[in-house]
């Protein structure tokens, strides 16, 4: 069952990767990167259950945090042209 979910996640990873690679505008790329982050967060936790070691969930939490901060950083770079104040 977990393997089936993993395969479905892998398929949707590949589909989103297409959008990440040939996205028309950069906002498409940002969206795709964010969605890939979500898919991988789910993938790590499902993989942990599949291997019978659910401690891997800590990594998912970290990645959920990092994904949000990374997306905010990219968006700020587009808005202001820099990450600082100037």
């Amino acid at each position, binding site marked *: 069952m977990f393997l089936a979910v993993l395969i479905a996640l892998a398929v949707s990873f590949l589909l989103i990767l297409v959008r990440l690679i040939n996205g028309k505008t950069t906002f498409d790329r940002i969206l795709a990167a964010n969605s890939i982050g979500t898919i991988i967060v789910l993938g790590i936790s499902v993989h942990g259950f599949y291997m019978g070691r659910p401690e891997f969930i800590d*990594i998912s939490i*970290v990645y959920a*945090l*990092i994904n949000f*901060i990374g997306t*905010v950083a990219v968006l*700020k770079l587009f808005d*202001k042209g820099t*990450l600082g104040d100037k």
Partner: protein
Amino acid sequence: MDNLILKVCTKVLFTPIILFGLYVQFHGDFGPGGGFQAGVIVAAAFILYALVFSVEDCKVIMPPKLNFFLLALGAFLYGFVGVIGLILGDPYLSYDVLGSTKEAGQHVGILLVEFGVGLTVCNVMISLFYSFADFDFGKKNND
């Protein structure tokens, strides 16, 4: 970024992120984690604050002087734990004498040492972000 929703979300998330960093820091003996990862997570919270508000606002809650002090304090703490062992009559960086039994000593030693690593990594990351975000040499050349 002038977005009210993002600002409120950052204010709500700031504390849980630091709390999770501390969990990773002090739970490193039993699960995955440790000083290095915890330092990065706590630094990520401050970087998020600096991104959504501004670097100047972040410098109010984490002043550069405190940042530099903690940066040095982490490495100092690591060395100092070793020196305590040396004074009490053991080799450098062996933690057996820090507690009442050998195991308790090892626990105390590992906890302190990891805390030193976390402090250094966190503050190095924050100061790197400060210096990258504030550096305006390239901007002047472009204009």
